[in-house]
């Protein structure tokens, strides 16, 4: 892909990443947030965190399945947008929802599994965001960097649990997200399994000893 193509793709990702925030600003400006604005904002930011996380996790499978090279260029940007929305989602919870009621928040983190896993999911994203620069990749070395960034699979699983455990009975959209995550992680598992199988095949089988 040429330089122009790469720029167009990056602009598209920036637009997708900023659109949910723009929508939020638009609703706030028009005082159009419904009866429970804090709940709407929290859910909106949480939904987009998960969507962008899934989008970043979809890039490698796209390369594996279709052989495309361009998705790898967008992975980091999508991941950083996911992190940004996770931080906003968390900030609304602290600053607006509980209004610095540290006691109740601490109790929630300890006692409410969905809060606990949500918090853990955010924590796992911090080292990934911190090492997202090209300089950090060089400093860590590609091998160690890749190993560290497999942490994002755990982030995905924690985010899925967060959504599953907070969703009320009768809701179904959480299953769509979980199914998407399962497919994206499943592609990787299949690839690893194949690679492993090839490696095993290459090992020469010892000739069975003839019985005496």
């Amino acid at each position: 892909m040429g330089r122009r193509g790469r720029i167009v793709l990056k602009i598209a990702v920036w637009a997708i990443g900023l659109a949910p925030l723009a929508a939020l600003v638009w609703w706030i400006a028009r005082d159009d947030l419904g009866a429970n604005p804090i709940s709407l904002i929290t859910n909106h930011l949480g939904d987009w965190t998960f969507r962008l996380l899934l989008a970043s996790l979809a890039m490698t499978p796209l390369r594996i399945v279709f052989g495309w090279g361009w998705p790898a260029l967008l992975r980091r940007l999508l991941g950083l947008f996911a992190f940004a929305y996770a931080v906003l989602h968390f900030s609304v919870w602290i600053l607006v929802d509980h209004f610095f009621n540290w006691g109740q928040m601490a109790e929630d983190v300890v006692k409410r599994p969905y809060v606990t896993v949500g918090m853990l999911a955010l924590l796992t994203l911090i080292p990934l965001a911190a090492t997202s620069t090209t300089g950090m990749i060089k400093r860590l070395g590609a091998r160690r960097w890749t190993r560290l960034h497999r942490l994002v699979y755990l982030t995905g699983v924690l985010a899925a649990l967060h959504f599953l455990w907070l969703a009320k009975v009768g809701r179904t959209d959480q299953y769509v997200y979980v199914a998407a995550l399962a497919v994206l992680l499943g592609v990787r598992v299949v690839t690893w399994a194949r690679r492993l199988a090839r490696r095993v095949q290459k090992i020469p089988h010892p000739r069975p000893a003839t019985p005496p």
Partner: protein
Amino acid sequence: MRIRRAERFRPSEITDETHYLNRREFIAGGAAALALGAHDRADAAAPAGAPLKAAHNDAFSVKDAPTKLESVTTYNNFYEFGVNKDDPSREAHRLKTRPWTIKVDGLVQKPRTYDIDELIRAFPLEERVYALRCVEAWSMIIPWIGVPLSALLKQVEPTSQAKFVEFTTLLDAAQFPGQKPGFFGGGLEWPYAEGLRLDEALHPLTLLTVGMYGQVLPNQNGAPIRVVVPWKYGFKSAKSIVRIRLVSEQPKTAWEKAAGQEYGFYSNVNPNVSHPRWSQATERRIGEFRRRPTLMFNGYADQVASLYSGMDLKKYY
């Protein structure tokens, strides 16, 4: 990827705000009609949002300012219309509230089927401003219009075996799209069933409700007739009721069947007993910014705590 958000209705599309603003006139009119012993309320047959006269009952009203009507009609949990808060206001037009009958039977001396308009005419209507606390930790203040359920129950004369009251909501997937079987299944078992102990049902606070904000009850709020049990979480207050049955055994409620460990039969508002997944210690009053502490029995402890004396409310959640 779809951005789901509340589809907003202007208040003018749902209700005529002047009806609400003029509610004191209706109340005064209702009081006058009562004084004359007149029970002529032909307007009660009118559709949702039409003015409905009722005498304001101050003794049974909280002093807090009512929640904005637009919030009360657009932010609803009414799974028959869908699981999202904005589904009920969008789908409510599908529900036909006339003709409508309510069958009152079971362990009673005089079982009876009421026509909705006949029922509205048979009892003097009252307006009561109640606090509504949802199990999801938000709350509203709503001026309801109705009659104490006890008035109706006394008319059918429960037998001595009657210990519980079971409420059944209309079952009709054509009018209630949420009752169609979903792709993933799960959800609630239809028709929606709720229940109260007989003494709870006979408690003067328990209101059989046909209106709010000086108007005939909007469909998304449980038209044409629902109960309101203000000291319990909102889902205990069954909507669009077609049957009230008196029984001897504690009825299985829809939410107990779906998730009994989370939603018990009693479901009294209690800041000290957490929902398994979240705290009930605080709530967000719709229209307010800060959370406020949740009160025992939603602020009705003086009136109802005696119903549960000696009971372990952690066990009977």
